[in-house]
């Protein structure tokens, strides 16, 4: 590794008292070169106390802003404090700390702007619910169709962003509510380079997923198609340097 880059791991957490302690411990031992920042999205349980006890920096949102805005808070923090890389990491224990290092090293080696930790690039033995798999396939197809790029896991929240992307996201007034395939398409259309690295992931251990139930996934798919439709009719945009 060349001169020391400043790396920030951003962890949005909402009611994750059962998982966050383990996640932080794992990160501290396996990714010791990076700073850790937890965005506590107004949790109603002991998440904030556990983070404080672990001696990790914690930003407490005044009210619940949902996952995407919590991530953006962390990215804004990184932009203000001159971080070179941000690694988005989930608080629910799905993501594995050792794999975060892999993402970061790949970002250093190549000139990719965004490195996505992909569950499906190689068969990493991730047992995935059928509906989620179908959804992923559809988005994979759409990205291939409009951006001529193969992204196997556009729904993965496990990503490493470089300084340019950090600055871009932090200034985005319309950062989407679900920053998944739509954001991947938008960034590809802007000319950012996105690459994938195969990673292992665990199934979540405790707590509630944000995509549970029957109505929510349907609403999610409609929202997603609608916002992809708008991004595509807006056409390619220039990348600001």
């Amino acid at each position: 590794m060349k001169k020391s880059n400043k790396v920030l791991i951003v962890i949005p957490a909402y009611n994750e008292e059962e998982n966050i302690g383990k996640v932080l411990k794992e990160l501290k031992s396996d990714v010791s070169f990076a700073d850790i920042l937890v965005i506590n999205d107004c949790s109603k349980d002991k998440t904030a106390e556990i983070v404080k006890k672990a001696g990790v920096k914690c930003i407490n949102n005044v009210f619940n802003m949902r996952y995407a805005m919590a991530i953006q808070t962390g990215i804004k923090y990184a932009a203000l404090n001159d971080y070179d890389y941000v690694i988005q990491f989930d608080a629910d224990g799905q993501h594995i700390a050792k794999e975060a290092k892999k993402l970061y090293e790949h970002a250093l080696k190549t000139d990719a702007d965004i490195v996505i930790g992909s569950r499906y690039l190689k068969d990493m033995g991730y047992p995935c619910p059928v509906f989620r798999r179908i959804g992923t396939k559809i988005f994979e197809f759409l990205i291939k169709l409009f951006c001529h790029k193969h992204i196997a896991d556009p729904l993965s929240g496990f990503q490493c962003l470089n300084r340019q992307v950090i600055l871009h996201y932090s200034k985005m007034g319309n950062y989407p509510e679900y920053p998944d395939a739509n954001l991947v398409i938008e960034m590809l259309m802007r000319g950012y380079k996105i690459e994938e690295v195969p990673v292992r992931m665990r199934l979540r251990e405790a707590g509630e997923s944000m995509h549970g139930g029957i109505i929510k996934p349907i609403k999610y798919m409609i929202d997603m198609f609608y916002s992809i439709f708008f991004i595509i009719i807006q056409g390619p945009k220039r990348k600001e340097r």
Partner: protein
Amino acid sequence: MNRIYFIIIALLCLLYIVRAVRKNSLSIKESFWWFVASVAMLILAIFPYSIDSIAKIFGVDYPPSLFFVFCIIFLVLINFRSSRRIAIQNEKITELAQHIAILEEKVNDK
């Protein structure tokens, strides 16, 4: 001939919504129902007699009244949604202002 006027109006509505989203004056999320409404308008402008067959399904004798009922329901719903949004946002703004005031006091104290 009438039909063409209505098709043009519907298309203008669609264009206006798309333009608002492109200029970031309307978020993609907020635009959804307006977009659906203007697509419905476009469909009705192209196939004006479809409202007759819908009226038959609902057992309405005078089809245009069904059209007005749909319009009113849509407007009331969207209005209610906006009211709710405003109420939630008011609450959040108050919370933010109070939070900032308290923080300011804390900062000045040091």
